[in-house]
């Protein structure tokens, strides 16, 4: 697997191997003409800050803030939330328990994306 190129200042430092595999499973189940997937970092009731896998068209161009990209998966957040997340350094990881209150699209594919903290760089 080719190592993804990570922007030096991006908050999202990439996907763990397990996260890549889950993403591949989601993509394999997609129609050929499916709209690209993206991650939006959510927060609030019952979840705390957590990634939500959704469609490119769910992102508001010129408003939502880009936090990095790995494996062709761009990561965004609401600008008020991004003010804090931009300083953070995290990986996208996976846990097996798919019970979560989210609409995140990976859930039917046997895993749930979570953030894993990295030391500040």
């Amino acid at each position, binding site marked *: 697997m080719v190592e993804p190129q990570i922007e030096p200042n991006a908050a999202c430092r990439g996907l763990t191997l397990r996260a890549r595999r889950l993403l591949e499973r989601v993509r394999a189940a997609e129609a050929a003409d499916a709209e690209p997937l993206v991650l939006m970092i959510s927060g*609030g009731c*019952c*979840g705390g*800050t957590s990634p939500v896998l959704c469609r490119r068209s769910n992102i508001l161009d010129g408003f939502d803030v880009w936090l990095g990209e790995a494996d062709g998966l761009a990561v965004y957040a609401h600008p008020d*939330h991004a003010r804090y997340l931009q300083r953070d350094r995290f990986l996208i990881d996976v846990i097996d328990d798919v019970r979560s209150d*989210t609409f995140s699209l990976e859930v*039917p594919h046997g895993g749930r994306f979570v953030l894993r903290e990295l030391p500040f760089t």
Partner: protein
Amino acid sequence: MSASAEAQSAHETPRRYQLFIDGKFVDSRSGKTFESISPHDQSVVAVVAEGDKADIEAAVAAARGAFEGPWASMPPGERAKILLRMADLLDARAMALGQLESLDMGGPVLMTSGMVNLAAEVFRYWAGVATKIHGITSAPMRPGEYLGYTLREPVGVVGGITPWNGPMIMAAWKTAPALACGNTVVLKPAEHTPMTAMELARIGAEAGLPEGVLNVVPGFGPTAGAALAQHPGVDKIAFTGEHVTGRLIVQMSVSNLKTVTLELGGKSPHIIFDDVDLETAVANALYGLYTNTGQICSAGTRLLVQESIYDRFVERFVERSQKIAIGDPCDFSTRMGPLVSEEQLRKVQRYVEIGKKEGATLRCGGGQPKDPALAKGFYFEPTVFTEVDNKMQIAQEEIFGPVASVIKFTDEDDAVRIGNDVIYGLAAGVQTKDLKRAHRLVKRLQAGTVWINTWHMIEPNSPFGGYKLSGYGRENGLAMVEHLTKLKQVWVDLNDFTMDFFAM
């Protein structure tokens, strides 16, 4: 009572739950099920039918049929009687339902059984409202020439998507007001905690709700939840959860421009001035923060303490935090149970790492308790960070766990500035003996609820909801009638002559 909660003791598991559609318990069309596990020991407490789009379609069709059939033509007083019977059944089963909820969610049974009683009060309140929903007589600009009046009519089929942190009370908030206003309901309970919503379906049937009036479809967000949010046959969605999913629901709601109300969490400031009684202030702060292991959207997670009492407050708050009785949520002596899930545990652990990285001082907690009896559970110690700057992530993001961020402030203006400097605006609180100051702060704090010298007061007659990214719309209180009804203006000409504009 029948095959409901009380027939099964708390630890006799796993239970089996089907979907409840059109007055019947049925398997999901896919045949799929999922497990609900106890956060205390990870044992399987229930095997639950997993609904998806096809089941949501059936539930919406049943709800539409009931809305256009028996429910719409039922006199409001009859609807009220059914809601009152549901309230009585909830009270009668409060202990058993509390045990179920504690098994599923991990909240201490002392609290969860009380929440069932509160859910009963919600049904009782809305039973009273059911007979009082009416329009107004318009004030005519030309009195005597015409009569104008308004009718309040139900919106139709209401979808409710509830979170795991208060399964029964959230199901009551999403259900009772909608039914009282003459709507029918499709409820999708949270994946972690589906049991008590299914028991509510059973109670509704026993109380005499006609078939299809209340449908409960457990399932996952991207399948069942999204199908409900997108469905053009759903007229209104009420959602409690995280803000990106709230936004996705708004985007999906354009399918038929359905009404949406959202409650999306908070990071509520609990402002403690130096004129308070220290013991009372600490007790209120503990209650505001650690109730339900910190898993309440309106928890007072940012403790803003005036600098002159900061050290004394922290010392006592840490001391009391370390003495909280953590244990099996089904035990009545427990005051704090586990977090709901591994996911939640991971998130809380991540925030402890972030807090340390950001330079806050970890004064107590920060990990899982050492008690071997709790080793299999998602338990987490009461955790206190001091010397927290409000710009830190632990002060800005909803952690949803037993983690306090204690922040110093100098004066009233400083407290307001810090209190409002957050993306959410669900709740805020002020502790002071100075009544004038308290009310000045009430005006200046950007939050849907402000508590003075108390916390977590939530009653069926009082609107609850947020400012800013905490969402819009309210739950509880008569304000909800606005969300759950449509307004129709009626005109009646009283003149005895023909107004013939095109007579020429």
